[in-house]
């Protein structure tokens, strides 16, 4: 009965029994299904004809996500990716072939899915998520992210949180986020303003490895130190303003040779092409299997949310696959002082003696803030601005001043930065 009804909907691409597997779930509830689930035609119609889903990223996770969504019955899928295909993607990004190297990921992936899964429309956008405005994001029921960039995740998270209008339930777009690193990964469901958001959990990220400049310049010990010397100190010295392109094998070759020479001078072993590339591009190991697991778990959540056929993840699934299979599912807590969804200012307590420069250093260091080149102001005065140059010059003398001479105890500072997709409010107290 079910299949006949789907056919009569007039979707020519649906053959009888096409959704035999998925329909077992949609035709009846399970023991943990919410009573609001309406089994049968209505939910299938919504999934297959009305729902519209956005996939951000068409890389390792994105390729998997697109295929899973298409097979699950989502038929109106949009995908955004700003990257082109590289040969090193082919070990896992399974919608791409050697002939596609150099082509935009979003476009190639969309075409592949449409060819393979009849009746599914995938609309690609080859560009940045920041190119799109609220109206664009408002058209989707769900957003799934398969990104490798913290910055892009923070942006989409802040955008979706800010879009929520309490008067308009439709303005709340569930955000499903996946990420992997080697044999490890995580998937989570974010209901903007309701659950913990991406920004709430920023301190869970591993701190990136950085080497002190004095080690790089004076006392190198590891091959990585020699590579950093070549890329951070030698490149700008030799090539001035010429931008280093870490995708250009000639540039990597120069860095490799330069690092190797320095390593020889200091009798340090272990500089290789692969390590050089790994250090300068900050390469994270990536394999098909982990991506498959995490993408499947993201799409499974999307399917459950779109159909209400089963309870969805609350709200964080973490997987470590190195020693057997270890996973941990937990509810990550919302932070009241989250600068994106918390609504409260971030309290900081500093010494009365601290200079503005010291405060900036602290902000850059803090794992729960993660800001580069912040500008700061109070409601009445400018403290320090990174740009434009005139304003920077004008506010530069403040760097050496004490914060306490510019901001009263208990007063607020607004922090902005080009990498920060929102304004961060600090409430300053002195010890």
């Amino acid at each position, binding site marked *: 009965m079910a299949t006949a009804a789907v056919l009569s909907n007039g979707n020519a691409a649906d*053959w*009888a*029994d*096409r*959704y035999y*597997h*998925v329909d*077992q*779930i949609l035709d*009846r*509830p*399970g*023991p*943990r299904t919410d009573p609001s689930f309406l089994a049968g035609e209505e939910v299938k119609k919504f999934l297959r004809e009305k729902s519209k889903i956005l996939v951000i990223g068409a890389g390792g996770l994105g390729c998997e996500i697109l*295929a*899973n969504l298409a*097979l*699950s019955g989502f038929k109106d899928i949009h995908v955004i990716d700003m990257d082109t295909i590289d*040969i*090193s993607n*082919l*070990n*896992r990004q*399974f919608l791409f072939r050697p002939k596609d190297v150099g082509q935009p990921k979003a476009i190639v992936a969309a075409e592949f899915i449409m060819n*393979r*899964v*009849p009746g599914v429309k995938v609309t690609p956008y080859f560009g940045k998520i920041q190119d799109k405005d609220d109206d664009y994001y408002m058209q989707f029921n769900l957003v799934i992210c398969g990104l490798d960039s913290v910055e892009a995740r923070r942006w989409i998270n802040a955008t979706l949180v800010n879009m929520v209008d309490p008067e308009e339930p439709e303005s709340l777009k569930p955000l499903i986020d996946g990420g992997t690193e080697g044999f490890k990964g995580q998937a989570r469901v974010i209901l903007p303003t309701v659950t913990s958001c991406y920004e709430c959990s920023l301190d869970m990220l591993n701190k990136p490895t950085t080497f002190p400049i004095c080690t790089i310049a004076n*006392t190198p*010990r590891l091959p990585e130190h020699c590579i950093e010397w070549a890329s951070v100190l030698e490149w700008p010295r*030799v*090539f001035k303003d*010429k931008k280093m392109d870490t995708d250009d*094998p000639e540039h990597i*070759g120069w860095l490799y*040779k330069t690092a190797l020479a*320095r390593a020889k001078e*200091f*009798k340090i072993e272990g500089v290789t*092409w*692969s390590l050089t590339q*790994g250090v300068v591009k900050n390469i994270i*190991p990536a*394999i*098909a*299997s982990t991506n*498959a697991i995490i993408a*499947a*778990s993201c*799409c*499974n959540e999307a399917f*459950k949310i779109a159909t209400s056929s*089963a*309870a969805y993840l609350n709200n964080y*699934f973490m*997987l470590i696959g*190195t*020693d*057997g*299979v270890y996973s941990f*599912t937990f509810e990550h807590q919302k932070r009241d002082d989250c600068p994106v969804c918390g609504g409260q200012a971030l309290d900081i307590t500093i010494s009365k003696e601290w200079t503005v420069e010291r405060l900036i250093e602290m902000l850059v260091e803090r794992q729960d803030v993660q800001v580069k080149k912040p500008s700061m102001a109070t409601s009445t005065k400018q403290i320090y601005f990174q740009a434009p140059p005139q304003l920077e010059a004008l506010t530069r003398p403040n760097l050496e001043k004490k914060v306490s001479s510019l901001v009263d105890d208990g007063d607020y500072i607004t922090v902005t930065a080009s990498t920060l997709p929102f304004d961060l409010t600090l409430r300053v107290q002195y010890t």
Partner: protein
Amino acid sequence: MSAVSESQDIEQATAAIEQATAAIQQPDNKTRRYDRQLRLWAASGQNALEASRILVLSSSATATAVLKNLVLPGIGHFTILDSAVTSPADAGNNFFLAGPSSIGKPRAHEAVPLLRELNDSVEGEAVVKDVRELLKTDEGRAFVSGFSLVIAHNLRKDTLDELSKLLWADHSNPPLIAVRSAGFLAEFFIQYHERCVAQPHTDDNVPSLRIIRPFPALSKWASELDFDKLDPTEHGHVPFVIILVRAVEDWKKTHDGKLPSTTPERKAFKEQIAAMRKKIDEENFDEAEAQVWRIWRDPPVPGAIQSLFSLAPPSDSPNAVFHALLQTLNAFVAAPDGPGCLPLSGALPDMRTDTESYVRLQTVYKDWAAVEKAKFKELLQKGFPDLAPTISDEEIDTFVKNAHHVRVLRGRRWSEWDADKEALASSLTISPRETAAHLGLAALSALLNKAPGKRCRTGTSDHASRGCVADGSTVTVDGLRAEVQQLVGQDIELPEDVDTAIGEIARAPTADLPNTAAFLGGMVAQEAIKMITKQYVPVNGYCVIDMVDMWTGTVGGQ
């Protein structure tokens, strides 16, 4: 140092790049293609993958999802053994079938080319035969046993039983991964006699630095160093290892040759280190204090390794080399002229010091590691004169470097656990939801085995099995519950988790959901890669997955 002057222009600089790279070739295409995975399992793991031949029973959505994640990283060969004809349902849930145009054609034939196009260097073959028929002949059994690994998805219970017995019969037969799924629930089991893992990658910490058991060159350096004569820069660059070795030596002199052990002693020891500082902000001393745990926690042999020494090697084990290395390790620790602990790995973590001291320290460690490795090899030769010449230097090297955390896993035959009522009942108390899901799936396979329940579409009479699907119409909550009760014993009260699991299974008894298939595809391929590369640690027991509440767990391990 670069010879390039600071005044050169961009063109010259670009020329310099070209010149520099002329001699240095970037890696070949294959290395670039596999770059992101070589960073995990290196060339040795890749070679093992490329030498592997994998047999997959079924070309269901789950089976092809597993294969996709094995073809991409580059296994050598795969064979799909499947007699099924593509049903309309298959064409709807399987990414590696060509949609409706595959309907009515042999499923394996349709899937193989779409999997092969993922990676030119992988061979793939479709064998359109029924595994039950194959297992009836010697030739068929030899064929199945000739692979490096066999993976089966939703295979009939009696066939799986027969297959698992065949593969279990001989230690040299391939391991088996048995995968079962229904709707949001799934599990897989890896059948192996024994897995020896020389590179578990489970511990990122550098093993013992021998601070409390210094070897001669280290001891000499630490005891001869005159801290007072060092200028402030030199003092601030003494490696923390040397500081600690010296501090231990000084402590022992005034404490009957004993290490600090009580809390007050440890506190006093830390104060002794603090007193060695010349300035408050010497970072090498900060490090020495932070690394002081290396003195409290440095057993001659970690407990887990010690317990491997008493493990009797199986008589017909294909892991004879690993066991020889393990017994040699035991002999090395026991040797009266040895250090009384595991051999030095030779690795050194980064530390606050100058280049010269670091490189010198690195050399001291490497040289001594070579001395102990030579001693190890001597013992290996003595203990295993026949085997020793067949073991490569690389193998010994890898083993010695990982000696502090090598692993041996002992497994059992598929379904052996299901015959142990007591174990099941106890597991149901300890891990109710995981055990319940396993029992539910075991009950399902028992029910389907008795009566698969078939539904065929009309108008497709040209082929007997065309358009037919096992629809699980025979599967009911009551039927599942009765099977579960039979597995654990009639007198066991079933927890609520059992109702949840069987309710979910009865809802979708034959559903191979795209997302569950993809999830399993990743999980099972990952375990297969661990089995083939002998790197990382595979699952022992049943890995159970619930995609409603989104958790995984392991039950029934040894």
